[in-house]
């Protein structure tokens, strides 16, 4: 039987859905486990060490050993902790980090004899809003964990997490506004399709939005240089100081789960998701049919799905996500942690105004392009790339002047004061040493 270009239906839809849920959940958990290993190995290479290489070939079984260890370790419950919330917090953190992956398409639709299967668990009409809602839910678990531990360091970590999440959520949302203006829709499949139709990935026409998004995503996932909630050197380990065994592991899984989701989102929103260069893999649902695009006269061009296309596009998606995961790790082991006031001033004084201004700029540019009748296509993308390029260069030029986030700049007033104090002290010492020795009575 030939594959048909209609959505899978009947009992097979349930089978396909079960398989997708199981498969993607397993995939995310495995990727999370191996990201922990990758983090340890890559950090080791960066520091000229070897990293864990004893368990299995190249240490590939290390995550399994870690899992067994975490299950077998003792669960501690601080005597003064609020028991219910203490146990609730890891759950509240873990669940949002895993469910956000449900709306991210991982490959081109797969044709089966019973119909075409979308390679996404739930292609929700609210798409990116669902991701934003659930990813910001995780902060409740962090704050609750810090508060329920009844430990001042954990509490400080929780407080910092809440402040940081709220601050960067704003810039994150605003940087996404430009993506929404481009696609005119919030579903992630539509975003991928619009990038295919544009002929270029949104990282180019929305370069500044991508920079803002990646910085905000680092802050949202509490990774260095924004890991204020953990801040080992200041707060022990912050909000999960009092946690042990599998509850601690739940926090770690959620952190890495957020990393995986954020990487997948960066790939989807700005690097075309599963889209690979060329138009051979274009596929989109339109009016109950899987189409590849529109002809010049407005008629639809039917898509030509194939299992090898699904496989290849999944490979592309995995490669993009893996790239951003490596960037996450690479940045973590390079940049030192920001000071807390630097995090706040970067979030509110730099990211927010820049994102707002960029939204206005891109809205104007899109309006002008639409008014003068430029068709949605490569030329449209090039024009926006030029506008964004100018904005990005201006932004980098402004940041690079050293007035915003350098430690030296923040201490400018202080340094002058210290200099004057030191000068006064030196003068006093000089005056005392030149005085004649006091006569002893």
């Amino acid at each position, binding site marked *: 039987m030939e594959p048909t270009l209609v959505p899978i239906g009947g009992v097979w839809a349930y089978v396909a859905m079960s398989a997708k849920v199981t498969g993607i959940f397993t995939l995310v958990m495995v990727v999370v486990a191996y990201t922990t290993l990758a983090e340890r190995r890559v950090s*080791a*290479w960066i520091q*000229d060490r070897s990293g864990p290489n004893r368990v299995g070939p190249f240490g590939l079984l290390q995550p399994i050993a870690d899992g067994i260890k975490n299950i077998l370790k003792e669960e501690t419950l601080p005597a003064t902790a609020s028991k219910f919330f203490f146990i609730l917090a890891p759950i509240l953190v873990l669940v949002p980090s895993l469910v956000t992956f449900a709306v991210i398409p991982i490959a081109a639709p797969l044709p089966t004899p019973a119909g075409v299967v979308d390679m996404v668990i739930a292609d929700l009409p609210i798409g990116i809003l669902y991701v934003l809602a659930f990813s910001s839910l995780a902060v409740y678990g962090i704050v609750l964990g810090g508060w329920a531990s009844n430990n001042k360091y954990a509490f400080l970590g929780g407080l910092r997490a809440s402040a940081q999440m709220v601050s960067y959520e704003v810039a994150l949302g605003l940087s996404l506004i430009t993506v929404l203006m481009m696609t005119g829709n919030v579903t992630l499949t539509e975003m991928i399709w619009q990038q295919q139709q544009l002929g270029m990935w949104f990282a180019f026409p929305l370069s500044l939005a991508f920079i803002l998004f990646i910085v905000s995503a680092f802050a949202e996932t509490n990774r260095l240089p924004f890991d204020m909630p953990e801040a080992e050197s200041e707060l022990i380990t912050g909000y999960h100081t009092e946690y042990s065994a599998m509850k601690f592991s739940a926090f770690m899984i959620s952190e890495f789960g957020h990393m995986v989701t954020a990487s997948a989102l960066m790939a989807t929103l700005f690097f075309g998701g599963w889209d690979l260069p060329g138009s051979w893999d274009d596929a989109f649902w339109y009016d109950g049919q899987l189409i590849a695009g529109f002809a010049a006269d407005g008629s639809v061009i039917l898509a030509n799905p194939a299992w090898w296309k699904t496989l290849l596009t999944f490979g592309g998606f995995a490669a993009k996500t893996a790239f951003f995961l490596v960037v996450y790790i690479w940045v973590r082991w390079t940049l030192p942690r920001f000071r807390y006031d630097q995090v706040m001033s970067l979030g509110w004084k730099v990211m927010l105004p820049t994102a707002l201004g960029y939204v206005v700029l891109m809205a104007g540019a899109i309006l002008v392009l639409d008014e003068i009748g430029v068709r949605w296509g490569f030329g449209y993308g090039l024009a926006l790339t030029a506008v964004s390029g100018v904005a990005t260069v201006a932004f980098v030029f402004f940041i*690079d002047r050293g007035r915003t986030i*350098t430690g*030296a700049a923040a201490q400018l007033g202080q340094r002058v004061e210290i200099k004057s104090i030191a000068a006064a002290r030196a003068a006093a010492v000089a005056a005392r040493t030149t005085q004649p020795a006091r006569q002893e009575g």
Partner: protein
Amino acid sequence: MSISVKLMQRPAPESTSYLRAALSGMALTFRHMINPVKVTQQYPEEQTDLHPRWRGTHVMETHADGRPKCVACGLCPTVCPANCIRLVGGEDDQGNRYPIVYEIDEFRCIFCGMCQEVCPVEAIHVGRHFENAEYTRERFVYDLDRLMEQGHASTNLWDPSDPTGE
């Protein structure tokens, strides 16, 4: 006594850049990430050659017929600064002295090598060996048979006429 304030010579804020510093740092770590300097010795698989004068687990030298060379003169327990050697000497029919009990507590031993230096018949030696971990403390007391079984090379003594060991 005045308090001295050390002023750090920091670059002027106008000439510093977080971005450029961050990017050069990223470049440095990237070079190490793709081409890490190999400094780690994978210990159980790769062994370092011990120095000829490395002083480790003791060895008791034996005669060709398997008897220990020790004549139970009592010099090593006397000289031992850690007091870790227990020696009970005996005498056979021909009047040859031999050790009835010869035990070294490797846990107490400080591996100074003075037992080897003082031995008149070159019987007890410290050896070029260090992997002597055990599961119980009792196992660290080596008796005469165990000292004779040790297969590793014994340590070269420092030779005053050849101080660099050439």
